[in-house]
């Protein structure tokens, strides 16, 4: 386009421009502080509507009372004064959605904070949206491969499921979620990691780790840092799931991690108390259950008529001194389709990931497991259960009968096999092969401490000469001939 053309085009635009008198509805700030403001006026303000304070600072109306409107402020509330004019925008808080957000680090409002330029998208979705209804859903049927043996084998997660990761601080909750994201490479999954109230240094480390493993190509990181206002921590999970919904609507599968919802509940409690809503148990407001249920209900597995997309949610809850009976943990446990318990004791015993398989469950994931995994994992679940029962008893008994001894030995080996270092997710076919080998007793003569080393050697051996067998397993095939072949491979390896 030549300069003249541009000028002509501009002239046309400018001459076509209509002068209009703008009607704005306004209010006045009566009270401001600690991230909230109370205003008079704004007579027809909607709930959850965005309000504009002087200087372009945005707020969200939360409390609509007889005389006043209470709002949380998204941004620097220090600059707002009593008597300032507040404008209605008529818009509900929205975030940009689209392919452009993939690979980026954004704040709770969807603005880029990674220094790679602004995110320009065509579409904006409101952050609060009703979850899909009964008629648009279907049961979980496709697995999410986390790449973690203990989880894929015993606490399987399906696409569209909500699986809670719960445990004390420093038990490896984030590690499980990050490993799951890293393992989604090439699995046709988009991932969204929502960091709520976390140290910026921790988030930077996670982003670096994701980049290192090539996971940022399909991942968005939504950050509401520890120094951001509580309002940001409160809306960050909703912003994340809104971005996920864009892909789910297009029929894609999304994995979203909320790290962690305890901090979101704290942020919401702070805002609610400042807005003078009555406190309830543990000083949380009455609707703190709804806070999490409406968020997690948006995880879904849509049926074919609705595009067939899915959102799998992995919320994280941090407990204090393993107290899972506190208010927020019980709420979220009751909302989700199962939970992965992580324990400090196990962590310090060297069992990492420190998953307590005994009390961890996945209520719907079993339906999504591939056939080979379902067959081999059933047996080890039993072996582990028996092992745990005998373990305590065996501490007092010096001489045990052969059968008990065998069960103990097998159990110890299964426990050892479930150990897995961080950032080393495994393919499902490898998991099946090694679990099969241990379960069939081929590793019984290997010292417990050498199990992982032997497993590695074994997998190298299988990959070396029997790649086709692994391919069959990864496709979900499992019959007598494959079992026989696997047995053959194990025996060959033993020689």
């Amino acid at each position, binding site marked *: 386009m030549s300069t003249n053309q541009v000028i002509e085009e501009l002239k046309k635009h400018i001459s076509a*421009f209509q002068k209009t008198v703008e*009607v704005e509805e306004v209010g006045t700030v009566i009270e401001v502080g600690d991230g909230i403001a109370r205003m008079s006026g*704004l007579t027809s303000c909607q709930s959850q509507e965005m309000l504009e304070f002087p200087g372009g600072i945005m707020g969200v109306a939360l409390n609509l009372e007889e005389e006043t409107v209470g709002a949380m402020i998204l941004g620097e509330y220090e600059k707002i004064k009593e008597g300032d004019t507040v404008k209605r925008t008529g818009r509900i808080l929205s975030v940009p959605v689209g392919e452009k957000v993939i690979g980026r680090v954004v704040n709770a409002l969807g603005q880029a904070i990674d220094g790679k330029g602004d995110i320009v998208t065509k579409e904006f979705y409101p952050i609060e949206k009703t979850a899909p209804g009964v008629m648009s859903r279907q049961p979980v049927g496709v697995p999410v491969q986390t790449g973690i043996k203990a989880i894929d084998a015993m606490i399987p997660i399906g696409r569209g499921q909500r699986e809670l990761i719960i445990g004390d601080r420093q038990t490896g909750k984030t590690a499980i979620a990050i490993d799951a994201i890293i393992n989604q490479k090439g699995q046709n999954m988009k991932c969204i990691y929502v960091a709520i109230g976390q140290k910026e240094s921790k988030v930077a480390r996670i982003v670096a780790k994701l980049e290192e493993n090539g996971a940022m190509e399909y991942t968005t990181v939504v950050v509401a840092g520890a120094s951001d206002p509580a309002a940001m921590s409160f809306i960050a999970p909703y912003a994340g799931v809104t971005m996920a919904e864009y892909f789910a609507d297009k029929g894609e599968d999304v994995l979203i991690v909320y790290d962690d919802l305890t901090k979101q509940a704290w942020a919401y409690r702070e805002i609610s108390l400042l807005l003078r809503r009555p406190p309830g148990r543990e000083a949380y407001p009455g609707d703190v259950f709804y806070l999490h249920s409406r968020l997690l209900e948006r995880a879904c597995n849509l049926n074919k008529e609705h595009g067939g997309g899915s959102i799998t949610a992995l919320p994280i809850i941090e407990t204090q001194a393993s107290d899972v009976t506190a208010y927020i943990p019980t709420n979220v446990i009751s909302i989700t389709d199962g939970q992965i318990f992580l324990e400090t004791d196990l962590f310090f015993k060297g069992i990492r990931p420190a998953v307590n398989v005994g009390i961890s469950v996945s209520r719907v994931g079993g339906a999504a497991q591939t056939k080979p995994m379902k067959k081999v994992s059933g047996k080890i679940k039993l072996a582990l259960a028996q092992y745990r029962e005998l373990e305590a008893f065996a501490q007092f008994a010096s001489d045990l009968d052969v059968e008990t001894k065998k069960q103990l030995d097998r159990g110890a080996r299964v426990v050892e096999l479930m150990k897995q270092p961080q950032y080393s997710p495994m393919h499902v076919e490898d998991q099946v092969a090694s679990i099969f080998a241990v379960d069939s007793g081929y590793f019984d003569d290997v010292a417990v401490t050498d199990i992982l080393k032997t497993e590695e050697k074994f997998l190298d051996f299988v990959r070396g000469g029997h790649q086709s067998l692994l391919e069959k397993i990864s496709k979900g095939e499992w019959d007598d001939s494959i079992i026989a072949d696997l047995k053959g491979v194990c025996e060959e390896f033993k020689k």
Partner: protein
Amino acid sequence: MKISNKQFAEALYELTIGLNASDLDIVLKNFVGLLAKKHKIKQTNNIIAEFETILKKKQGIVELEVTSARDLDTEIIKKIKESFGKEVFVQEKIDKNLIGGIRVKIEDKILDASVKTQLANLKKSLTI
């Protein structure tokens, strides 16, 4: 139950409407007594402000706040007054940032016909 300033002001308006001077004295005295009893003396100024708005509303008085970039002619002010009703009080304000045009504030609405906003709108229409 907590009684709001607005409710006090409304009550006062309804009590005082059409009273003669001597009755007014008694009503006001009782009203102040009530305020003291309800620990509302501190709120007196706010209640008076509420009372004024109620009074203006009932008597059909419109209060405008007209902001412009330069001093406005009396002629223009008169025109503005005429278009908003019979009894109009105008408070004038100067804000150089508007560049030109006027901005009228009436209750909790702002009618914006300033050059600044028009330019901002033009910019918006050109960028997208």
